[in-house]
Each structure stands twice: as structure tokens, then as C-alpha cells.
């Protein structure tokens, strides 16, 4: 327990008759970077705001460094300003009536640090985000990316142990977003901070986190490392929301007692070698195969599993990849291949994918 920096247990947040967060529990270890990922309305932002003390939960408990920040049973709710956490807001929340320096110095001045110390800390924080030369600029005429950096500098200037990120990159354009992602990841590593990050962008979540918590409808769907979430989605929702996957309907042919290899028969009568990440119950009716994990070959591939004949129905050129819609005995598959592999529309191909990439989903 002492290892956990943040502990959220049985958190419930209701607004009037609507339950935004329905009993969420997780912990974040020291120095860990955890991302709450989900579509809008899944409760991820509400959870984050509850940790920050900006949202009043209906029940549950939130502890930071072992100290109870909120507890419905103790009737305890520490106000935001006394929680000692820091936060980067989706809209950056850079105060337009202050200079860059004043923005970054805010948290330090609130803590009544001596002037020299404030200046030194602001300088260090602005240095981290390469904004030193902007210190005396009014914050109102900065670009989106610059505002984002100021918001970051402000959030880390007073050396908080916990930094919360509420979709900080969602207002940036795609290219800048990709750059900032790298910078954020470096910043997280350089500073000894624990972070909780909220995003609806699965790429972002996979790229910058140690662990991802996928949320849906106010609850947690799956917790795991980015690789685990991507390669071994537990539910239909995770398979669908994270990355792109083919969901293939059918029924289990063999059901072992524990997790491991299983045989799955698709609706078109194709038998697939699949992988169960949980002990199967027997009524599972779907497997997921990532679009990127399916191979297409002109001849018959050697040594591959799950081979089936297919026909290219449609080809969409995306640049970084080519997306094919392939007819096969079990319906249609979406397949993404690198642009180095080119098949004509109407061509007959052999489809194959590894058993470990054919994941049995929970019913």
C-alpha cells in the first residue's frame, strides 16, 4: 500500500440521475504513468477531476500518498488547493491577463516562496519546455503549442509529485500533437513525477503510458500495459476502441479449463486456432484479429496457421498503409498492409494470421 501514490477505490460520481463514474478502483504506483482511455462520456475526465478535487464524488475513497483526500465514509473532502497535486487542462487554462513568467510563477507565489527561488524555479520549468525566451511575453499572444508548453511548465514548476493531464494535446493539430507526445514522454521520465493522463486518443495512450486503463460507460473495461491492451483485448469494446480489429463471430469448438489455445469455428464454417486470455466459459461468440496482423499472399504461405482463401473486394490507399476489404468464407475482413505489398482489386489471395493474434473475447 505504501508503494501506491494514488489509490482510487469504489469511486462513484453521480450528476442528478446520471451516473458518470460507476464504481472505479485502481492504483497508480510511484513514478508510474497511467492513462485513462475511453470515448467521450465514459467517465475518464470525471475520475481525473475527482482526484484533483474539482468534482465531488458520491461515494468511494481517494488516497494520495496514503493520505485520505476524499472518503464518503469519513465525510472527508480535502479542497483542491490543499491536495498538492498539479494539473494540465484540456484548454491549457493559460491566464491571458498575465505574462508567461507570472503564469508559471503562480503556484510558487501561492506557496509564498522567496522571490529568488520563484525566479529560479520558473527559469528551470521554462527551460524544460524550451520557452525561456518567452518569459516576459503576455500569455495572450502565444500559439497553441506555446500555450501548451506554458501550461506544462506551470504544472511542474512547484515540483509536485502528482501531475494530472486532462486531454492536454487534444486541441493541437495532428503534427504538433505527435511532437508534443514525444516531449511529454521525455518530461515524464526526466522529472520524478507520477502522472495520470486522460485521453480519447488510443495512439496517444499507447505511446506515452506505462499502463492503460480503458474505461467505458463509467466502468473499467481493462487495465494493462499498452502491449497487453493492444495484443490481448479482453472485450469487444477494447478490441474495437483500441487500434482497429476484425471481430469474427462464431462459437467455441474446444474449451479448456484455463487460458490458452482454443479452437473457434466461425459463422462461415472456418475453424481457427485462437488464444484465450481468460478461462473460457464456453459461450464466447467472438474472436478479434487486428487488421495489421493479417498476412495476404499471392500463393499458399508456408508454415502459417489459420490459412483461408480470400478475394480482394476493395483497396483504399492511405499512404502509410493500404487498407483492403477482403471477402473470405466467414464474411469480410479488413486488412492493413504496408504499401510495399500491393494486390489488385479482384485478385485471389491466401489469408493467414497467427493463433496468438486471434484473441477470444469475453462474452
Amino acid at each position, binding site marked *: 500500500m505504501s508503494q501506491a501514490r494514488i489509490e482510487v477505490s469504489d469511486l462513484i460520481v453521480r450528476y442528478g440521475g446520471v451516473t458518470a463514474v460507476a464504481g472505479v478502483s485502481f492504483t497508480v504506483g510511484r513514478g508510474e504513468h497511467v492513462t485513462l482511455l475511453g470515448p467521450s462520456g465514459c467517465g475518464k475526465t*470525471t475520475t481525473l477531476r475527482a482526484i484533483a478535487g474539482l468534482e465531488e464524488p458520491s461515494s468511494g475513497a481517494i488516497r494520495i500518498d496514503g493520505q485520505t483526500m476524499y472518503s464518503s465514509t469519513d465525510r472527508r473532502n480535502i479542497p483542491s488547493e490543499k491536495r498538492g497535486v498539479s494539473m494540465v487542462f484540456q*484548454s*491549457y487554462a493559460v491566464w491571458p491577463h498575465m505574462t508567461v513568467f507570472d503564469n508559471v510563477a503562480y503556484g510558487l507565489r501561492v506557496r509564498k516562496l522567496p522571490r529568488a527561488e520563484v525566479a529560479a524555479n520558473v527559469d528551470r520549468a521554462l527551460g524544460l519546455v524550451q520557452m525561456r525566451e518567452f518569459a516576459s511575453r503576455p500569455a495572450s499572444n502565444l500559439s497553441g503549442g506555446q500555450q501548451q508548453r506554458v501550461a506544462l511548465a506551470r504544472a511542474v514548476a512547484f515540483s509536485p509529485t502528482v501531475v494530472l493531464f486532462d486531454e492536454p494535446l487534444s486541441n493541437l493539430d495532428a503534427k504538433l500533437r505527435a511532437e508534443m507526445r514525444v516531449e511529454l514522454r521525455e518530461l515524464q521520465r526526466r522529472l520524478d513525477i507520477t502522472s495520470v493522463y486522460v485521453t480519447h486518443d488510443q495512439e496517444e495512450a499507447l505511446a506515452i503510458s506505462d499502463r492503460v486503463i480503458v474505461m467505458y460507460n463509467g466502468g473499467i473495461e481493462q487495465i494493462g500495459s499498452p502491449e497487453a491492451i493492444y495484443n490481448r483485448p479482453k472485450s469487444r469494446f477494447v478490441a474495437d476502441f483500441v487500434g482497429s480489429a476484425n471481430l469474427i463471430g462464431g462459437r467455441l469448438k474446444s474449451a479448456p479449463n484455463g487460458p490458452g489455445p482454443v479452437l473457434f469455428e466461425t459463422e462461415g464454417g472456418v475453424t481457427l486456432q485462437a488464444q484465450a486470455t481468460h478461462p473460457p466459459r464456453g459461450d464466447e461468440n467472438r474472436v478479434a484479429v487486428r487488421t495489421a496482423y493479417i498476412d495476404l499472399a499471392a500463393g499458399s504461405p508456408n508454415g502459417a496457421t489459420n490459412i483461408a482463401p480470400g478475394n480482394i473486394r476493395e483497396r483504399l490507399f492511405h499512404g502509410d498503409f493500404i487498407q483492403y476489404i477482403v471477402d473470405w468464407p466467414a464474411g469480410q475482413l479488413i486488412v492493413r498492409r504496408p504499401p510495399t505489398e500491393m494486390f489488385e482489386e479482384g485478385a485471389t489471395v491466401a489469408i493467414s494470421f497467427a493463433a496468438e493474434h486471434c484473441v477470444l473475447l469475453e462474452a
Partner: protein
Amino acid sequence: MRPAEIAPHPDPLRAMRERGNRAGSARWLRVPPFSAQAIVTLLILLVCGGLVVYPVVFLVEAALNTGDPQEFPLQEWGLANFAALGEDWHILANTALVACMATVMAVTFGFVVAWILTRTRVPGGARLERLMELPYYMTPLVGALAWAILASPRTGALNQVWHAVGGGGDLFDIYSPFGIAWVMALFEGTVAFVMISAAMKSMDPSLEETSRVLGAGKWRTVIKITLPLVMPGVLGATIFVFAEMLGSFAAAYVLGIPGRYYVITTAIWQATTSYPPDFGRAAAMGISLFAVMLVTLTIYRLIVRRGNYATITGKAFRPRAMEVGRAAWILLAVCWAYILVAVVLPMMALLLTSFQRFATVIVDQMQFTLANYENAVRFAAVRSALVNSLVLGFGVASIGVLVMTVLVWIIYRSRAPGHGLIEYVAMFPQAVPRLVFGLALLWAWLNIPIPIYGTLWLLALAYFTVLMPLGVRTLAGVMLQIDKSLEECARVCGASWGYQLRTVTMPLLRPGIVAAWLLLFIASVRELGVSIFLVGPNAQVIAPSIASAWLSSSTELSTALAIIQTSVVFIALAILFRAARRFTGELR
């Protein structure tokens, strides 16, 4: 100000979250009972609640009192005062007639001018839009004076011109129901223009563009698409304006009383100032008027809230102005004709009269003098009215803006218990006709042992109370534009509530605070409905002085005062417009 402008990622829960914050359960946890916020909230609730509710209680008491009017708490009570309203049916009929005529005129002017200025391309349209609001700031009192000079039977300037060109009889008699409605429509109907142009501006232009693309012509699009879409807005404006007109006082006061033509507001005034004063009758009429207005405004709210308001999406659109070719000059002429009758002619009439020894419109009888302005400064009573109005304006605006800023913050941002109630309390005076509230205040403060009746303090308290909705609405408009996370970020950074208000909220609200200060100042300086009940020998203010100078036949002095009042208001208005422009410049 860029961060506040960026639209957040669309999040259905966000709206829910915001609503939830204001009506959630278990809120007591959020604000500890003895925090600064809770104490301030309670204090404001008590003070504002007292200021608003206390007079209304007295008004109800007076209306129900059938015994000795000086007795409190009341000994005998009943509905006799209300039953007696039946005898005054002609007053109610007058009121309905005048209000209907005024509404029809105001909405017609408002609609035509709003359409021209928002949907067609006429030269100088943006500047004209500002001018359209001037009549409202001139006030119906000053407007009534001016039109009395312009259109009195026989002696009025317009009628003189009519005679000079050989017309028989009078062209226009301003001392008539139509005359009263005419002045009300011109000087109080501005709200119709504002509301209708808002509806027209917030219409998604792609709705019209679609019609054009599908092959409909310009005018066909106007009739088939534009008009049906703005109709709900026009209907809303009509109902709102009708309610305003029911409670309108000044025009009927100046133009109705000489001919003993009473509407309900002037009848209330008459009942309280006749000897012996009949407070019971006045209060019963006041409450009835209040009730009718409340019903009308409720209908208005229902219409607005119905949601089939396709035009109002809350998004700011830049509506596509229609190319009208040569017709632009005709449309422009229509706008200028409105400005002419609502601003230029009245101001000229007032200016001309205020510089004359004896009011006349016959050119070769005019004797010009500065004596009226000298008198305005020399007569102690008049001078003190001028000074008092300015002092009240500065005082009420300055204190008011401070209190109302905290009030608005609590209404829109706080989660302290009672914050929702404050909104109702603060906006309540808006639902009560100004004159009726004046009566209520008079009766309430006459019957309280605190000796502030007849002093400026009571006027200041009264102004603060009735102007609360104006200040709150102005500040709220800006508060709602400030991204909430700007404040939340301050809290997360470790700032307390007070520190956050001082370093983040107040500076960001500055444009709103400046605007609210100026609007409160203007509204104080031009205030009539409440002042007229509460002025005393040692507490004169300008608007009632203008009215009483007029009714005691000092036409020249009253026009000089009217010019002074209008100048002060216009100067404040010019500062407001300039400040508004600077702030919108900053926002870009």
C-alpha cells in the same frame, strides 16, 4: 484571451457535469460550513433576500389591508382592494389599448430595422446598429418631453409646419392614446430591435444558403426560409415587449395626466399621491400588474425554452448579408427615418427649447438665452438633484459592481448551498414593474423604524435592489465566457478562494466589470420609476425633477435638465462603446 475561446472536445457529460454541479447531491461536503465561501454566500443571501423580499411583503400586506392603512401588522384584511379594481375597468382597458398599440409599433419598427441591418448589405450598417440603441438611453421621459414639443396640438413644431403648408387641423396630437403608445414604442421598444436582431444573427446561414443552392431565388428564400425561422424569435420579442409596455410609466405620466387619461401605472401613482393616499388600491393594482406581467413573462420563457427554436443554436454565426442592389438606399432611408424621429428630431426640439427664454417653435418669436442652464445650476433644489444623481450613480455603480461580482461568481461557479436561490433573488426585481417596486419600497421603508426614508441612503439601497438584475446579467455574460478551467487551475495550483478571485477571476472579468459599472451608472442617472416615490425635500434626483418641472409648466427648465441628463448618459455610453471596442480588440 485565446484559451477561453477554444471549444473543448465535445463531451456530452460535460453539460451534465455542469448541471450536476449546480444541483448535485451531497453538496454539503464540498464547502465546509464555516469556510469564507459559505459565510459570504449566507451573508449575500440574507442581505439581498431582505432587500428584495421585504418590500414585496409590505406590498402584499398593503393590498390585503382593509382596515386602518397605518396599522401594522394588519388588523382587518380581505380582498376588497382587489374587488374594487372592477370599478377601474376603463383604466385597465386604457392600459391594454396603449400596450397593444405600442407593442405592434415597436415590433414592426424593430423587425424591419433588424432585418435591414442584420440581413442585407446597406452602407454603414454596423454604425447604424449602435445608433438604434440610443432612444432607449434617452429614456421615455425625455422622449415624451421632446415629442410634446414636437407634436402638441396647435403649438407643436410638426403641427405648425403642417399649418404652414396649408394643412387643416392637427397632423398629430401627442396627448392621445396613440401619442403615448408612439413614445413608448420609440423609446422603450428598442428591446424589440435588440431581441429580433439577436434572433436573426444567430441563424445558421447555411440554412439559407441551402435554399439558394437548391435553386430558390433571393426573395423566395426570405419568405420561405428566413421568415419562418425567425418567427419564434419575433413572437418571443412581442410577448416580452408587451409585458414591458404594461409596466411602462413615463410616457403615460407626461402625456396622459394632463388629459386625465390614465393607464394602470399612472393610476397607481395617482392613488398614492392624491389626498388621502389610497395605498390599498395602489398596492392591489400593483400586485395585479405584477401578476399579469409574471404570466406574460412565463409564457415568453416557455416559448423560448420550447426548443423548436431552430435559429437559436448558441453558436455565433456571421450571417450572410443579402445583396439588395439599388434597394439598399431605400432600406437605408428607412433606418435613418427611424433615427430621425427617435433621436434627431427629439434632440433638436429639446436643444432648441432649452436655449429659449419662452418655449416656442415660431422662428421670429424665439429669444435665445443660457438662463435655463444657469437656473439649473443656481436653484438649490435643482442643483442638488443634479449632484445627487451623479453621487448616486458613482456610489451605486462602484459598490454595486463589487457586490454583484461576488454574487455572480457564487451563482455560476460556487457549489455552496443556497447559490441557486441567490439567482432567483437577484433576478426577481426584473419581474416586478419598476413603478410597482417603487411603491413597495416606499411602503416598506415608511413602516420601518430605521430613519432612512427621505435620504439618499434609501435611494441608493433602492437603486441597488432594482438594478441588481442588470448588473448580474451583464457580469454573467462575461463570466460564462471565461473558461472554468482558468479558475480551477488556480485552485489546483494551491490558491484559496479569495486569492483566486483576486488574481484570476476579477482581472479576467475586467471587461464585464467596466461594462457593468457604466450600465449601472447610466441606469442610476436615468432612474424614474423608483425615484419618484422615494425622493424627498432633502433627497432630490434628476429624473423626477425633470418630470415635476415639466408638469409645473417650466418647460424650458425641464428641457435644459433633460439635455443635461441625456448628455451625462451619452458620455457614459460613449465610454462604454469605446471600452467595448477595446476589449473586443483585445479578444482577437
